[in-house]
C-alpha cells in the first residue's frame, strides 16, 4: 500500500498506468515521470512503487521486459497492455466522477 505518497489507495496504480500510456518505462523512470508530471508535488518511494508494479503484473495490466538503457545498464521496462488501457480509462472516468462530485459538494457547503 502506498504510504509515503499520501495518495488515496489504488491511485498510485492509476498514475503508473497513466505514465506508461504514452511510453514504456523502467521503474526509476516511472517514479521520475510521476514526480515531474505532478509538478514535483508527488514523490513515489520504491517501497510503494514496486508492490504496485507487482500488482499490475498480477492483474495483467502491464508487461515487463529487460532492455539495455541509454546508459548501457540493464533495466526492466514496463509496457501497458490493452487490458491495462481499458482499466486506465475506467479508472480515470471513475476518478473524474468522484472528484467532481466531491468538488461540487465542497463548493456548495
Amino acid at each position, binding site marked *: 500500500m502506498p504510504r509515503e505518497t499520501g495518495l488515496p489507495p489504488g491511485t498510485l496504480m492509476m498514475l503508473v498506468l497513466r505514465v506508461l500510456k504514452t511510453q514504456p518505462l523502467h521503474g526509476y523512470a516511472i517514479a521520475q515521470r510521476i514526480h515531474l508530471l505532478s509538478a514535483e508535488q508527488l514523490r513515489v518511494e520504491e517501497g510503494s512503487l*514496486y508492490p504496485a*508494479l*507487482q500488482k499490475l503484473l498480477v492483474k*495483467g495490466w502491464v508487461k515487463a521486459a529487460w532492455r539495455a538503457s541509454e546508459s548501457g545498464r540493464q*533495466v*526492466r521496462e514496463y509496457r501497458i497492455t490493452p487490458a491495462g488501457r481499458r482499466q486506465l480509462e475506467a479508472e480515470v472516468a471513475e476518478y473524474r466522477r468522484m472528484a467532481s462530485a466531491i468538488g461540487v459538494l465542497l463548493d456548495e457547503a
Partner: protein
Amino acid sequence: MAIIGEWIRRLGYLLRRRALEDELRQEMEAHRAQMGEPPGFGNTLRLREEARDAWGWRWLDDLVQDTRFACRMLRRSPGFALTAIVTLALGIGVNIGMFSLVNGLLLRPLYEDADEVVQVRSRTAGPPARGRAFSYPNYRDLQEGTTDIFANLAAADTGFVGLDVGETPRRAMASAVTANYFQVFAAPLAHGRFFTTEEERPGAAIRVAIISYPLWEQLGADPSTLGRLVRINREYFTVVGVARQGFTGTSIPGPEVWLPLGARETFSTEDRPERPVDAREVHELSVVGRLRSDTRIENAVAVLATVGRRLEQAFPSINAGYSLTMSKPSARLMFMPTAGTGETARLVLLLMLMPAVVLLVACLNLADLLLARGHVRRQELAIRSSLGGGRWRLTRQLLTEGLLLSLAGGGIALLLSAWATKELLASLRPLLPVAVTLPDVSLDWRVLLGTMAFSLLATLVFAAAPAVALTGRAAAADLKRHSGNEGRRPGGVRIGNVLVVGQIALSLLLLSSGGLFMMSAIGATNVDPGFRLDGGLIVQVDPALARYDESRGRQAHLTLIDRLRGVPGVEAVTIGSSPPFTSSGDSRDVAPAGGADARSPFGAAQGDRERVERSRSVDAVFSVVGRDYARVLGLPMLGGRDFSDAEMAPGSGERVAIIDDALAERLWPGEDALGRWIQFLDAKGPEARPLLVVGIIPAVKHSLGTPRPYPHVYVPLGQHYESAMTLLLRVAEGQDERAMLGPIGRVVRDVDERVPALSVATWRDHLNAGLDVRIIRVGAGVFSAFGGIALLLAILGVYGVKSYVVSRRTREFGIRIAIGAHPRALLWQVLREGGRITTIGIGIGLLLALGAGQFLQGILYGVKSIEPVVLVTAALILVAASLLASYIPALRATGVDPTVALRSE
C-alpha cells in the same frame, strides 16, 4: 476470464519465483543506483517481501515454513513425537476401521452408476390391492414394452439351496437369474461367461452356474475351476463363470451362486411346490433394470403405465387392476442379527460411538502431552512473540505441529485399519445364518477422506486448547519472569488435571462396557442348557431340498435314524424338528382341553373336551420328535411313557403328546398333568384335535434369548410332518464324539446321496457356533480392545501429567529436602495428589458406566444393568494403573538432590 488469466499468471509466478525474485532484487538495486545511493546501501529485503505479497502466495510460504519448523521441532523430541503418533494411530485407527465397515456396508455404491438401477414393482387391483412379484411371461412382455427406457431389464428369483462343493453340504443363498442380469449392474465377470438366452428359457434345465468370488477363492482361486461341477440341492451344475469381487447384486449379503432362470426348477423347496416357471399366473420373480442414461423419469413412468394397461387388457383375469411402479432397490442390508430392530439399532449406534470415545481419550492424552511440553516451549514462544510473531501466527505454528502429528498418525492408522477391517469382516462371516457373499470393504476415496476428517478433527480437539492456552499469556512477561516461578502459577497443571480426570472417566466407561460383554460371553458359553451337552452330536437334514414329498421325506428320516443307530459307538439316536439351540423354533398356543374329569378321557363327553379353556393358553415350543428323545438329551422321564414305534408312522390312532414340567406347571399348577388333554388353539383341521398327555420330561433351555425353563410340547413323528429335521445322537460312554463326526457324515451320505447333511457337529460346538453367542463374542473382543487401548492411553496421560508436575516442582522439592523433609513424605504427597484426580475420574466414570450398562442391558444376554463385579474390577484396574503411573514420577521427586535442584534454575 480475467480471474482465470490472473490465476494462470500467479501459478506461473509460483513456478518461476526464484528467478523472478532475483529480477526484482536487481531491479530495485538498479533503482537505488539511479537515485544516487551507493551500492549495498539499505536493505531491500523487506521491500521485496512486500512487493512479493502482491502475488498472493504468502500463505504458502508461511505454511511451508511452519511445516519445516514443525518437522524440526518433532525431530528434536523424537520420544514425544513417537508417543503422539502412536496414540493418534490407535485413536484414529479404530475410527477408520469402523468407518470402513460402515462405508462398505452402507455408503459405497454396490455397482456402477447406481442411480440408473431401479426395481420395478407391480400391484394388482384389490380388494385388497397388493404388491405382487412377476411371472416370467409378464416379465418378458414388460421387457419388450420398455426397451425405450431400459438399457437392460432382468428378472431374478432368490432363495436358499443346499450347496455342496465337495465338503459338507451347507445352506447357501442362490439366485436364478435371466441372461442379462449381470449387465444390469454393469458387473463384468472375473472369469468365464454370462448365461445365454437359451439357458434362460424356462424348462431348459441346462445346469450351469456362476459362482461368487469368495466361493471361487474357497475352491482354490484356480482358473481351472471353470468347468468344475458343484452340487446344488440334488443336481450337478457346471461352473461357467465367476462373479466380480465384491459383487452382491442389489443387497448385502449377496448370493453365493447364480443359476440361469431355466434351471430354476432345482430351486424349489417345501415352501414352493414345483410349478411351471413359464405360467403367467406364477408370480415369483423380482425385476430390476438399468435405465438408459437419457431416460427422463416422467417418460419412464408413462411407459410403465402404458405397458401395465396393455398387460391388463391382454390378460384381464390374471392382471386385473395391474399397475407398475419403479423405485430404488431396497433392503441394502439383509439378515441383521436376530435381535429386534431396536436392539440392532442400539448395537450399531454403540459400535459407532465407542471408537469416537477412544479417539476422545487419545486427544485428551495428547492435549496433556502438549501442555506438558508447553513449559519447554514457553521460553521459545515468548522470544518469538517479542520478536514480532503475532498470536495468530504462533497459534498456527502450534496447530501445524499438531496437524503434522495427526496426519502421520492417520497414515499409520490407515494401514492398521485396512488390515483390521478385513479381519473383522472375516469374523463376521460366520455370524450369518447361511454362507453368503459380503461386499468389498477395502480402501476407497471415502475412507481416505474419512481419515483426513478424523485427523483434522483430532487436531482441533487436542491441539487447539493448548495452543490458545500457551500463546494467550502475556508472552513478554513470560520472558522476563524467571521460569522457576512457574510452579506457583498452576494454570497448566489444573488444565492437565481436568484432562486426566476426563481420560480416567472415559477409560472406565470403555473398560466396564467391555467387561459387560465379556461377562455375557462367558455366561453364554457356560450356560446350563438343562440337558447333557457332552457326548451329543447333531446332524441336520432337509429332504425337501431334494424335492422329496412327505412320504419319501418320512422314509428318509426313518432310514437315517435306523442306519445311524447301527453305527458303532452310537448309543441312542432320535430326531426332532426344533431341538434346543438350533435356531428353529415353531411354537403353539397350548390350552388344557376338557373339564375336571378329563383324567379319564374315555368317560368324558366329547363336549367337555371341546370346552377349551382359552384364557389359560400357554405359548410353548412345538417339536416333532422321534423315540428316545428324552434319553438322547440325557433327561429322565418324570412320569408316563415315551412314544411308541407305532406312533412314528402316520395315522396311528389316538393323538398323544409329551410335555415338559414347565408346561405342566403352567397348565395345571400343583396337579398331575399325566392323562389330561391339551389342544393347540392356533391349529386347524385334524391338528386341532385334542392330544392326550402320555409323558412328562424336564424342561430345557431353548435358546440363549429365551428365559429358562421355557415350556415345550412334543408330538410323535407320525402326527406331523416337517421336512427340515435335526438328528440327535448320543455316543457311548468313553467314546470321543469329535472322532465320530467323519464316519457319521459318511453314513448320512451313503444312506441317500440326494439328502445332504446340512451340518454335522457336536452339541457343544453347535451351541458355541450359534449366532447369539458369536455376536456377544465379537462384541466382547471389540470392546475389550477399545477398553485396553483406552487404559493404555489413560496410563500414559497420568504419567505425563505427573512427570510434568514433578519436573515443575523440582526446586520446591529440593528446598524441602534441604530443610529436612523426609523423602517418603514427598513420595506420599505426590501419590496422594495422583490419587485425588484418579478418585474424581473414577467417580465420574462410574456414572458413565452405569448409563452404558442401562443401554447395554437389553442387548446382552444374562447381564444386569449394574454388575458390581465388572464395575469394581474396572475401577480397581484403573486405580492400580494410575497409581503405578504416578509412582515413577513420585520416586523421581524423592531422588532430587537439593544442591542440583537449587542451582538448576
